[in-house]
């Protein structure tokens, strides 16, 4: 393993592409989910009247919003799992190349 030239792999277009796509995807999703989550306590504290609006029998917006957090978390997990298989394929190719020629010194 000591023979692998990591800098060389790091600068290959393939790895750069993986890096760019992953960075954009992961941190974008991360930022979105954090903002969405903090809307819940912020809304409960400062927009209480909105949370009290009943939409489905006694079920109000606050309750639905809290439930939507669960759906969103599961949605993100599902969405990421699907996208990650593309990342896996790219990483696998990079790993294979590293074994063959590209990465060796």
């Amino acid at each position, binding site marked *: *393993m000591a023979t*692998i030239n*990591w*800098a060389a*792999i*790091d600068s290959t277009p393939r*790895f750069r592409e*993986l*890096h760019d796509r*992953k960075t954009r995807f*992961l*941190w974008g*999703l*991360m930022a979105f*989910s*954090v903002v969405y*989550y*903090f809307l*819940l*306590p*912020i809304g*409960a*504290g*400062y927009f*209480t009247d909105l*949370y*009290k609006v*009943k939409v*489905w*029998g*006694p*079920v*109000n917006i*606050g*309750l639905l919003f*809290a*439930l939507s*957090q*669960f759906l969103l*978390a*599961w949605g*993100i*997990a*599902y969405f*990421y*799992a699907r996208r*990650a298989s593309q990342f*896996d394929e790219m*990483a*696998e190719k*990079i*790993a294979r190349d*590293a074994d063959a020629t590209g990465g060796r010194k």
Partner: protein
Amino acid sequence: MNIRRRLLIPALAVGAASVLATEPAFAQTVPTQWRFLTFGVFAAIIALTMYVTYVAAKRVKTTADFYAAGGGVSGLQNGWAIAGDYLSAASFLGIAGLISLYGYDGFMYSVGWLVAYITVLLVIAEPCRNIGKYTLGDILAFRNNPKTVKAFMAVSTITVSTFYLTAQMVGGGVLVKTLIGIDYEYSVIAVGVLMLGYVIFGGMVATTWVQIIKAILLVLASLVMVFLVWSQYGFGGPEYFQQVIGDPKIQARVGGLLGDAARTMSPQELGQRFLEPGLYLKSPIDQISLGMALVLGTAGMPHILMRFFTVPTAKQARISVIWAMAIIGGFYVLTLFLGTGAAMLVGPTTIIAADPGGNMAAPLLAQFLGGGPDSMLGNLMLSFVAAVAFATIVAVVAGLVLAAASAMSHDIWVGIVKGEHATDAEERRAARICTLIVGALAIVIGILAQGQNVAHLVALAFAVAASANLPVVLLTLYWKRCNTGGVVAGLVVGTLTAIGLVLVSPNMTYPLQVKAVQQKIIDAQTPRIAKVNADIAAASDPAAQDKLKKDLAAAQKAKSGAEAALAKVGTGTTSLVGLEKPLFELRNPGLISIPIGFLAVLIGSLLYRDRRAEEMWDELYVRSNTGIGRAAAAAH
């Protein structure tokens, strides 16, 4: 109603005494004639976990087996084990209790515990699996000065684990005592000894399986209970909540919580208020601060991150988080029904009488659903939930002890003292000795902390993990300039800021404030007692006299309670750190300490020049994204 009254009588005898107080005559939830059921169910579950440990012990042949189950755990198995590790008694019993007493706020509180896994899934699990070996120290040592960062990370790991562990041990001791009536000390020793058995003999293999078994039992028990609750209300959605808001016990509870403000509200409005925010969480800023600690702290919890070293590939690490999210999230949704169901069927008054924190909501609901305290099935179901709660504590404690012991043996003893020169057998022996030390400490701390309010220690553990562990792990993995200087600064500053802010926060006991509050009660009750006494003398009608006597008893009870609290405070005037009143108003320090932790890593890294950290960056980043170099470990 009969059932409820029977439960109420012994419970009222103890009044509002805290479960954490050392009441010898605590209301025992399982009547004596059914105690054999409890022992039977406990014995069955313990026997099952013992058998698993026995099988696992034969599979633990190497150090990698002991710390990380040889990397041979599948994603699905690890997902269940993470859920088992995470759904501690605090979240299993605590959140159901909060919902049963405070409605919406309890449910909102549970959301953060799930959302936390988005951070774990997206940015932590896979790189950790690709870079780490057995401990968090391994991840940091990859590109930083190994001895330095391992020393600091080990201390932080042990600190976080000890905070969490203490809360679990005390909670466990009280719970077992309440549920089956054995002494607190023996409960703590039972939890500790059983856990030590699993970890010492079976290492991570046994710990994983105990966590899986416990998670499955927990989910099964919850599903059955929710089915039974829901079946009583016709499996409706809005119809179910219509029943919730129409329930007189819930309406009375909300009325009691709101006090004067409730006077102008109709019963229906009071019930509806149960589904609205603000009954429990009064300070939005504090709530946001706690949310930050949860969402970022989970990803810095050593016993959670350690679980990712047990899977063979980054993909399996990802799959395990997704399973964990499905299980944990599903469980919290069930908890909404367990909590509201307990509020309707058992009633907040009875739940508070058994435990002011609401922890007995789920066990009491189980007893009710099975037919109540006089029925065999009711007590069987209660025993089952109690045994699951017990298994929960043992499984969580096992994970925590293993995390702390690994930091001690792998990072400190092998990494620093022996300079990475230890044979596999030596390291395995060291790991077992360290487990014994940490486990013995946990038992001692658990017994010493009896009667202390340890609830805030869980929040503190998450705050330290979010302010110290997460910044250094995250920036080591994602920021090229991060180095040893930054890691040390982040760990020290993050930990001290989080702990320091809690020491000067309202979480501590401030004798002067307690005295002022209690004195006010005494001052208000003294003239009331005098007035009622005069009224009794003046009253001629026996019915009116009876009513006044009840008033008198209530007033005297309130006064004596306040006097007892006053006596307990003693002559001190300052808190543990010598303050008369809190310097810092937030109960959860995350809002301040997390940014400070990140800032410390940034500044420390920029001030300290470390060429190796930058040279190693390419290797770390390529490995973390591709898993190259970790295949060998996976093939093990």
